[in-house]
């Protein structure tokens, strides 16, 4: 009996290790690549470096442009997260709380956004942003990212909000609390798992987004880190070690953010999974 459970556990651990290695290996190769010379990267991509060269990491960390890119990315991502959470939660709150004519149709319309490929929209989006006059500003990246994040946000929020007991609102209503105050004082504080889940999704997506900033941003001052990374890609040579060191340093915040919110993400996703 115990040997059977031991075997089953062994199998389980093995499978988990294999899957984890798929995730960790590229990350490790990236982090280690930052210590190697370009020649060494070509010959042994996954091995430990022969000598630990900190110069590439040092060079990037001491380059003010790097911090500038990082700051831009952070600003854009954080604003996109805040905006998505606020607008998405407010919209989902209305869908969850109030029945009104056309609400189902409007909701389905918003969900269509889930099926809309980002790349297809890039040209009309560019023209629209240019006409509004936002080109080359942070908002030209933040607003489209928020808009594309809203479908998923509203879907997950609505499901979660609907599960808040109805009597809670009624009790607060009898106490003199209206819809808007209830949203701030009850719905948002009681929805931290789903807020964290959606927040992480939007943050990571925005942090890693390459296409949109590439199209919208022209001046180096406004570049996000994926654009900044391109400076190591010359016409004839690509400095892989610098690129890898750069990537390692820039994905750090996203990983830290993800780890911090991990507990909530599981709760948020399973919470939303009960009812579709």
């Amino acid at each position, binding site marked *: 009996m115990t040997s059977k459970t031991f075997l089953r556990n062994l199998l389980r651990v093995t499978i988990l290790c294999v899957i984890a290695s798929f995730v960790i290996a590229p990350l490790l190769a990236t982090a280690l690549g930052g210590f190697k010379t370009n020649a060494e990267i070509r010959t042994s991509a996954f091995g430990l470096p022969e000598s630990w060269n900190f110069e590439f990491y040092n060079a990037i960390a001491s380059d003010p442009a790097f911090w500038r890119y990082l700051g831009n990315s952070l600003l854009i991502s954080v604003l996109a997260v805040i905006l998505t959470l606020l607008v998405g939660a407010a919209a989902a709150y209305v869908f969850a709380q109030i029945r009104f004519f056309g609400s189902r149709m409007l909701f389905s319309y918003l969900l269509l956004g889930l099926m809309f490929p980002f790349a297809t929209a890039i040209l009309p989006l560019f023209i629209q942003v240019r006409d509004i006059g936002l080109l080359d500003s942070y908002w030209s990246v933040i607003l489209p990212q928020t808009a594309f994040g809203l479908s998923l946000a509203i879907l997950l929020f609505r499901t979660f909000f609907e599960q808040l*007991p109805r*009597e*809670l609102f*009624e*009790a*607060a*209503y*009898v*106490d*003199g*609390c209206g819809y808007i*105050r209830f949203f701030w004082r*009850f719905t948002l*504080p*009681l929805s931290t798992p789903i807020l964290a889940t959606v927040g992480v999704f939007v943050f990571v997506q925005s942090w890693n987004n390459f296409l949109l900033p590439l199209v919208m941003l022209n001046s180096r001052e406004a570049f996000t880190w994926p654009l900044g990374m391109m400076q190591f890609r010359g016409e004839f040579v690509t400095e892989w070690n610098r690129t890898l060191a750069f990537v390692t340093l820039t994905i750090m915040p996203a990983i830290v953010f993800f780890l911090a919110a991990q507990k909530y993400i599981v709760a948020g996703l399973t919470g939303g999974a009960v009812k579709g």
Partner: protein
Amino acid sequence: MADVHLRHINKCFGPIEVIPDIELEIPHGSFTVLVGPSGCGKSTLLRMIAGLEKPTSGAIEIGGTDVTGFEPSARGISMVFQSYALYPHMTVAQNIDFGLRLMKMPTSEREERVKDAAKRLHLEPLLDRKPSELSGGQRQRVAIGRSIVRNPKVFLFDEPLSNLDAALRTQMRVELAELHQSIGATMVYVTHDQVEAMTLADQIVVMNAGRIEQVGPPMELYDNPQTEFVAAFIGSPKMNLLPGQAIGRDDIKSVGIRPEHLETHMENGKWAARAGVIENLGSDTVVYMETDDFGSVTVRLPGHHPLRTGDRVFLTPDEKHLHLFGKDGRKIHAKDALSAPAT
């Protein structure tokens, strides 16, 4: 004065009419219990008094003011919910305090009132806890605390004890009765448990299918039920309802006799029966019997009783306590009840 008047209240949910037309008066300071089976419209009625549902037509008056169009917070009411509906992210003190803060009451007065309510409900050591750290009974007390700090004119209770276990329910029932005596405010209480209704109320409203069957003090409903429904609903064990032939009357629908108004004899009597399940409660004995001709009958006998399952007995009803119900389910008055010949 905080009397509640419901005038020609009608409520429809879409095409379904749940309450056709209700007229009800709840006097100032009374403890009125709305009782009835599930789906009879009692909770809907309470929610309309609270302002959580709007009546389709009709008017609601509290203390002489027509509050039909008022927000719940402007009606001078407070409500205790079945699931307590405590705010899970707030402490007990914040839960009790919340309504007062919304009323923009000065801090000193708020603290005073919260302290008062906590003392009255023995919540003082729990003020800093979250609802999830409380037991069922404590949560219920917090919910009551939340409603008394607002000094409402009318307290509304929507099946507040139904989530508690039996022992706690009895205890909370006593506490609620004490609360009513000490505050003296008008209380409206919804339950489907007729024991709660009998013990708490000074006025019971029995509802069935959106209609009021009878309104009156508990003992009047017990001694003098006006319809067959009330007769069967009030009292535990239930009143026996037998076909009219049991007393030789074919012109009536049924005759009711309470279990304690039946006498048993071993040799002779009106109805022959066989004892089935016997429940010894100590103070009295409840025997479920099967009569030869009219189906099952429950008999309550005082104290311990030597009767055993399977014994053959004869039952004789106390004729003063027969309730006759006509074909429409309404009571036929007693003066013509006793003319029936014995069989």
